[in-house]
């Protein structure tokens, strides 16, 4: 009886695991395929029967631009070989020492990295600077505002809060035209200002923190004030240390939001020096529309930092999400 029960349990657990593994595979697959593609040659990308990069022969044309060509040996003469190209070019005979063999093309990453002007490096710097400043700013303004909304009484409080909340429902696209006009009036188009300052405050952060703060007993605040603690002091010495989880949540969300935003930086920047990685990627995809191995390499280095960050700080991500969900 007990034994069969155990067996049943094992079977059940096996079933659950197999379902979950299939699901997990499907979730991760696009990333795996992205990585596989990014290591292939342009020939392999369009070879529909081939899933993994294979060993390929390359020949470098040292006379013309040092371009690397994937080739095929059609006749072997020992020291030399006759090679065939996969593009429109007549076969030639070359010394075998000029031929190299490659399987995983790490060079695709370097190619994609440098294929944009100035380079994806610059885009990364921009993206990181913007995301860090926006995150820090938004966390600060949110804490201050939420603090006031929960612990202070002041005229029009509810109106102001409702007004803030209402902005959450407005599609971002509505804001684009007027904001563009405002920013250009300020002369901020194509500067970091345009990318940072409008995002220094966010209703989501204020809302989330308010939801957290209201759970803190008002008595705690009143007692602290009676004890002679200033309001400022209460905020920094008591409230913020207590509110680490929602603050981390907001930081993560703001950071991700800033890192991943596309439309805004696309509209308010013009010069290549000001582009973020998302914008860079969208221009890149337009310029190199069919070179999938390079596009996937570029996508990979846009995605990988996020995945690494996520795996390192996983606990906070998931807790934050769940917390955000339940309190919403």
């Amino acid at each position, binding site marked *: 009886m007990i034994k069969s029960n155990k067996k049943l349990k094992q079977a059940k657990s096996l079933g659950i695991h197999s379902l979950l593994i299939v699901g997990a595979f499907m979730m991760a697959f696009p990333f795996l395929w992205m990585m596989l593609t990014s290591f292939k040659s342009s020939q392999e990308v369009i070879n529909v029967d081939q899933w993994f990069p294979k060993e390929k022969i390359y020949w470098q044309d040292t006379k013309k631009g040092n371009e690397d060509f994937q080739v095929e040996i059609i006749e072997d003469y020992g020291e030399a070989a006759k090679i065939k190209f996969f593009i*429109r070019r007549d076969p030639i005979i070359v010394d075998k020492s000029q031929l190299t063999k490659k399987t995983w093309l790490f060079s695709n990453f370097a190619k994609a990295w440098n294929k944009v002007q100035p380079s994806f490096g610059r885009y990364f710097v921009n993206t990181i600077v913007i995301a860090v400043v926006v995150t820090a700013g938004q966390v600060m303004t949110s804490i201050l505002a939420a603090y006031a909304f929960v612990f202070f009484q002041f005229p029009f409080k509810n109106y102001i809060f409702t007004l803030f909340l209402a902005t959450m429902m407005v599609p971002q696209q509505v804001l684009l035209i007027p904001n563009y006009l405002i920013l*250009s*009036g*300020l*002369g901020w188009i194509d500067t970091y*200002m345009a990318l940072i300052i409008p995002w220094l405050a966010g209703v989501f952060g204020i809302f989330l923190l308010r939801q957290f703060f209201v759970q803190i007993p008002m008595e705690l605040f009143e007692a602290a004030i009676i004890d002679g*603690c200033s309001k400022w*002091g209460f905020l920094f010495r008591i409230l913020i240390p207590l509110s680490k989880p929602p603050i981390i949540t907001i930081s993560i969300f703001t950071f991700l939001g800033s890192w991943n935003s596309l439309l805004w930086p696309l509209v308010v920047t*013009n010069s290549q020096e000001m582009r973020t990685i998302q914008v860079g990627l969208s221009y890149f995809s337009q310029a190199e529309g*069919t070179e999938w191995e390079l596009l996937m390499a570029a996508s990979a280095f846009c995605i990988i930092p996020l995945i690494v960050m996520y795996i390192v700080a996983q606990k906070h991500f998931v807790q934050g999400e769940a917390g955000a969900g339940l309190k919403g």
Partner: protein
Amino acid sequence: MQVLKVNYKKILSVLFIVALVFSLGCSKKNEDVYTEQGKLKIKFWHAMGGILGKVLDDLIAEYNQSQDKYEVHTEFMGRYDILEQKIIASVMAENTPDIAQMYEGVTMFLTRDKGEESLIDLKPYVDKWDGYKDIFEVFQRNSTYDEGKIYSLPFNKSFPAMMYNKDILKLLNIASPPKTWAELRTIGTRVHKEVVVDKETSLPRLRREKEDPDVVPMMGYGFVVDPWTLEIMLLQNGGEMTNKDESQVKFDSDVSIDAMKFLVDAVREGWAYRTQGYNHQNDFSAQKVAFIITSSVSRKYMERKLVFPFSVAPIPMGKKKDVSIVSGTNISVFSSSTKKRQDGAWDFVKWFNSPEITARWAMSTFYVPTRKSSLELPMMKKWLKETEGGDAAMLQLPIGELEPRSSAWYRCRIVLRASMEKILSIVEKASFKGDSREIISQNLKADTAKMNKELKKYIN
């Protein structure tokens, strides 16, 4: 517990300063910027990506080296529609580049309807330039707007071209590519009937006596829906796109319905098929179709991958007259630049339209040159001799016509394209049994009304 005293005045004053920074946008618009060598910087926005971008950048580097007054600095803006968005947004913000490439609709938009003269009239410069007479007539018309103002010079102009697989023609013993649509139909039908894609080699071969029943027949003509083709067929058969003052389109005319019917019949007869995106080009590269019509520039992108003998011919001609329509953008100079930068911009535009440069641009991109004399240059002659079908676009220069240039035209094109797609998607279905002419005429009539509504909005 140590009490932290807070000075609210301090906080408020800090906030006040923040607010002040907000409102003080130190704008440095419109200032001339010089490089370290003392060259005036000229900003040029373009949408030439990939290989074309490389060619353009090399040419501009050459321009920058060739003189010591100006330094043209390019910004790649992605697709045309995004470039357009950027240009118009920059005009709104009075934060424009000095030069940009743009379609005629945008030029009109920026000078007539809404932009309130955001581009400069190049006439005064052109009057002092002896090269203008040498610009092809079609481009002169293309650049000249109301009251003889010249708001642009040609930049990257192209014509449609027909790419064809020479191996397939050889199999059928056909010496030259079709010159008319009727010939395309004849040859296309033969291709579809007599040639198949070999299962083993994926290469074209003649159909055998005893053939595998599910062998893939070779397709005669593959196309993507493009108003460009329809417009050209319409003109070739003696029709008109619009009335005289371009206030109404005429895509509901019988000639227009006939033109559309050609495509519909081609699909229904089986020798032609419609596809999407760049699939006609991919199919051509994979030797699954004998003829495709694309912009002459597409060859630049495809060439390397075409491992079989191919060539390029002008677009087929119609019943009444030999006409083709030019496409591509022009360059214009913005009026919000300083006079100095406008001079620099003109210097560059002029340089780009010099016989040698335009010839080199054409040779390395398959756009057409803008100067008549560039066709006489020895290097061009040599190139034409070496490049089979290199003249496919240039041959159409004398018969080039223009599309309407109003900025509402862009919207009309969207409607027309959707209309064509709709018609084809209905008649393509195997289950379709109705009268295809009826469907065509009904849709074109409805959509012509829609286009006229758009035009009316624009005129008011």
